[in-house]
């Protein structure tokens, strides 16, 4: 990824320690297994991937020098780079690729995220040391972009053998840094991998990382994290709470930089299969009757942008032109509700229809609400009230979520679905992904539309970026028109950097990259 705008030209210094603070940490460090996307941040310094995705969303060689895709889109043959070694000395070869991918899909890994990226993976065939052939059960064009993420990063087979216990605390890869230790609730410590010479093609610099050491501390409490930066206890922090951005920008010698995460934005998904939201007019009313844009603007001080599409602008396949499909228009909304027959009003001022109150049951997990999504929710609740909706929060906890989701026993769900490209749309709106009895499935809107399904299926069978973009655009238009999703905002990773830290770059995943970073000793 490219460096940030911070004082270009200043010549990088080698050595030194960078102290970085993050808002969250994974309970399990193994990106193949861990459910939390923050794992990517902590493991990227250690892990290289087969391919990389550049700023423009183009796939570039990395550990794989080149690759060929079979005509039926089901076989990918990778030619691997030579001379790559994991930090524990194990050479990187086709066997390693096989070991990694097999490890991802092995049920014993209990992969919560990575395996979802390669659903159709069948097996990897080791043609020779430098050639690995990946077989898919059905076409899956997003494979390459998936492979570019750290969740499918290449770990040392030796380490993989040591089992989940070990991997949960220690990751061994071929990356620019070597992980010294990871202590839960404290963070991770890395040191430079002196032999590193295989950055992704087009990286800002080659060779070993500039930092001698890298410290990533976990400081969950926003205020404390910010305080740590301002009081110089750390050199840079991630997950800067928007409320502090202004203050930090003003702060002497501090820089704030942010990057929108690709993939699905943070959206509300109405349950189109049951409850009041089965009526499209009610959905549209909800979408246009609430001024999401303003709410987001105010709440996030313009740091997170209100979004108009279920996928983020940064994502390959994002349709820029659908902005005006949903416009804030309370009158129209009211009219729609009247048409839909929600004409009555009860003493509390909520709309009713033959005696029943217009109540929306929201499957909201407060315990994991980040970025003040609970506050946001409160405000949407307040706005909806004006419109005549009663929004009730279901007391859903981490442990009850899956059940509720599977039963479809809700009217509204909310989450952000981060993937590297617009293929996120397939997870979100393909009828095949409607949550099943076992709770699997990310189509929380329970949206089922043959045309959309058709478009999405076709995306899997074409590598042509242009064509795929077109298909994705159609999908986005359709789901917005059907109000099968209420886009809220596109999460951005906000970075605040102090005096010492220089050239902290960006991953395509909108995480800071420390490969090029360096520190200026005072």
């Amino acid at each position, binding site marked *: 990824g490219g460096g940030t705008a911070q004082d270009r030209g200043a010549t990088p210094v080698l050595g030194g320690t960078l102290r970085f603070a993050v808002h969250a940490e994974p*309970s*399990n460090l193994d990106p193949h297994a861990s459910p939390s996307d923050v794992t990517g941040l902590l493991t990227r310094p250690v892990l290289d991937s087969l391919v990389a995705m550049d700023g423009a969303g183009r796939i570039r060689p990395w550990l794989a020098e080149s690759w060929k895709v079979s005509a039926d889109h089901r076989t990918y043959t990778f030619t691997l780079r030579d001379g790559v070694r994991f930090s524990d000395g194990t050479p990187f070869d086709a066997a390693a690729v096989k070991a990694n991918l097999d490890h991802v899909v092995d049920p014993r890994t209990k992969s919560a995220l990575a395996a979802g990226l390669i659903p159709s993976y069948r097996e990897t065939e080791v043609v020779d040391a430098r050639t690995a052939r990946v077989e898919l059960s059905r076409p899956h064009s997003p494979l390459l972009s998936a492979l570019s993420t750290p969740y499918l990063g290449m770990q040392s087979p030796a380490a993989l053998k040591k089992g989940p216990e070990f991997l949960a605390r220690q990751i061994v890869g071929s990356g620019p840094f070597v992980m010294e230790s990871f202590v839960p609730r*404290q963070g991770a410590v890395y040191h430079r991998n002196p032999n590193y010479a295989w950055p992704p093609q087009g990286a800002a610099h080659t060779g070993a990382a500039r930092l001698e050491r890298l410290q990533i501390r976990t400081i969950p409490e926003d205020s404390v994290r910010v305080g740590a930066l301002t009081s110089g206890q750390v050199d840079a922090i991630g997950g800067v709470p928007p409320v502090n951005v202004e203050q930090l920008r003003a702060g002497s010698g501090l820089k704030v930089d942010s990057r929108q995460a690709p993939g699905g934005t943070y959206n509300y998904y109405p349950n189109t299969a049951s409850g009041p939201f089965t009526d499209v007019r009610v959905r549209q009313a909800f979408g246009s009757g609430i001024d999401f844009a303003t709410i987001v603007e105010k709440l996030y001080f313009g740091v997170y942008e209100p979004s108009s599409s279920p996928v983020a602008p940064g994502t390959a396949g994002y349709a820029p032109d659908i902005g005006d499909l949903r416009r804030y228009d309370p009158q129209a909304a009211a009219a729609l509700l009247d048409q839909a027959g929600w004409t009555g009003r009860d003493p509390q001022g909520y709309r009713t229809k033959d005696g029943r109150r217009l109540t929306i049951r929201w499957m909201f997990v407060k315990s994991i609400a980040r970025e003040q999504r609970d506050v946001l929710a409160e405000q949407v609740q307040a706005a909806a009230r004006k419109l005549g909706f009663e929004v009730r929060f279901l007391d859903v906890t981490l442990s009850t979520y899956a059940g509720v989701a599977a039963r479809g026993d809700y009217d509204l769900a909310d989450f952000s679905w981060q993937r590297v490209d617009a293929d996120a749309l397939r997870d979100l709106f393909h009828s095949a992904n409607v949550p099943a009895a076992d709770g699997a499935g990310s189509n929380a809107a329970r949206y089922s539309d043959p045309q959309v399904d058709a478009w999405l299926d076709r995306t899997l069978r074409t590598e042509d970026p242009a064509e795929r973009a077109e298909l994705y655009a159609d999908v986005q238009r359709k789901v917005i028109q059907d109000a099968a999703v209420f886009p809220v905002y596109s999460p951005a990773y906000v970075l605040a950097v102090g005096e010492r830290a220089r050239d902290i770059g960006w991953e395509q995943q909108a995480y800071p990259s420390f490969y090029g970073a360096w520190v200026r000793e005072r």
Partner: protein
Amino acid sequence: MTATTRRRLLTRLATSLVVIWGAITVSFCALHLTPGDVEDAIVGTSIVTPQVRAQIVAEYGLDRPLVAQYGSYLGRVLRGDLGHSYQRHEPVVTAIASQLGPSLLLAVTGMGLALILATATALLTAGRSRWVRGLASGAELVGTSVPMFWVGILLLTVFSFQLGWFPAVGGDGLTGLLLPAVSMALPVAALLSQVMREGLERVLHEPFVLTARARGMGDTAVRLRHALRHALLPVVTLAGWLFGLMLGAMVVIEKVFSREGLGGLMLDAVAGKDLPVVMGVVLISAFVYVVVNVALDLLYPLIDPRLQEER
């Protein structure tokens, strides 16, 4: 140690075992009555394939009947194995061990601070003029009414964010420990000093104090040599309560100050329904509680000989 003391101690230990066992059982039942399956908790909001789900169930033996799970848990506990965390991918013992240190440090520092503060205030204000005592008890009143987390936030903001006197995140040495310890100590100190002064003042009116002074003993000497010990008695009796308070405070304070420790561990575990960890913490705390009490039982007669025969 007299026979009576020994007998009391034994019965005490016996009850303690019951208590601990009860603690385990209660929490075990409690957590298994929770709506939602454990595997759901382990999976959380992420989407996993049925195979993975099955794998989880099998690995943690969640398909076995509760009784069986309970039995094997008890068995392992007896062997000192508290099981394996669902969320944290490490043995509970390790998890707790890694968090115990910081928490203890915090608790001990806070406690020490509180005691020093309290003793000083009590000794200085006891039996003084109406004004002094009014002032002191007023301060104590406020001290005990202020919610601990609020104090924490205020201190943190003022002293480390605004003034930058203290680091925002602890961990590194005493400076990082001070603010949390203080916010923990203030309410406790307020209470203790109240209790101690009350004790002191009662003692200072006892005839034996008058006697001592009639012997020509100075005020300070009387306070230190006679009164203080009496004043400490009620403090000892409060120890059990203090212990509870400390653990409670720990959760809150550790959250406010983003400190690592048992509190955070507990919160995460409960939120994530990380059964083994929760039980581990329950067990540990119940155990410590018992130890504390037994220790007190032994301490009592040493401090107050009158209790050697009675009780």
